[in-house]
């Protein structure tokens, strides 16, 4: 799967629109994921799962900022996320299936807040971007 120049432009446009809310969106995507896919909570047994918890907000900020970083270096996502790839491979070892779930919930979050932004073409580009990020983060697993 390759991000075309149109995909890259679409993704950059999305993040320039939502960048100011990225912490909020990251947290909401996590919250949606925990609600819809309870098995994902198994990676956070130490978290307070109440809505708006400080831990979810902090983690949502981390996730959101990583996505912004990837979009800012969209020509070299493996390079931009190399340290995060190492972390996920060596320490976190989150099963690859979960990146799809979080990617989906991030799309739902963007859709709920910016319906007119998520045209079918932008939806496709953002979906490809989220898949790429997931692939990069699991690329050193074995």
């Amino acid at each position, binding site marked *: 799967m390759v991000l075309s120049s149109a995909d890259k432009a679409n993704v950059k446009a999305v993040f320039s629109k939502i960048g100011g809310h990225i912490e909020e969106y990251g947290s*909401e995507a996590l*919250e*949606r994921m925990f*609600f*819809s*896919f309870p098995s994902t909570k198994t990676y956070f047994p130490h978290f307070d799962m109440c809505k708006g918890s400080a831990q979810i907000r902090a983690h949502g900020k981390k996730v959101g900022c990583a996505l912004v970083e990837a979009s800012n270096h969209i020509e070299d996502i493996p390079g931009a996320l190399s340290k995060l790839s190492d972390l996920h491979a060596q320490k976190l070892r989150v099963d690859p299936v979960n990146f799809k779930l979080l990617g*989906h*919930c991030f*799309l*739902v*979050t963007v*859709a*709920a*807040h910016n*319906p007119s932004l*998520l045209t*079918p*073409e932008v*939806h*496709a580009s953002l*979906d490809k971007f989220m898949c790429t990020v997931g692939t990069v983060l699991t690329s050193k697993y074995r």
Partner: protein
Amino acid sequence: MVHWTAEEKQLITSVWGKVDVADCGGEALARLLIVYPWTQRFFDTFGNLSSPTAIVGNPKVRAHGQKVLTSFGEAIKNLDNLKATYSKLSELHCEKLHVDPENFRILGDILVIVLATHFGKDFTPACQATWQKLVGVVAHALARNYH
């Protein structure tokens, strides 16, 4: 048998009551064909699917999307008996249409995104979770008679 709480049933029917089946169905199917272009393999007879604009404007896509979502409406009327409701459709999708059940799952997720664009903040995490459960059980029921 799948158990639905009163709250889940309420979240389903209150959303469904506001859904324009033709619009949402058409949009969901169009997005499926655009976001996951390999799904176009099932629609050789649909004419022009050469670009997102062509797909969105294609009347066969819209009509088929409406058909698919109308069938979803049947599921919502028969939440306590999805197995029987989808028995024949499951056989059809296996024996005649040869559709990989993975496609039901991805269409379900696309429908959730379409609902989010229509309902915005009203499509709360709790609402999404209920609809994820619904699209999951519909996909499962459609795959159930595969052999």
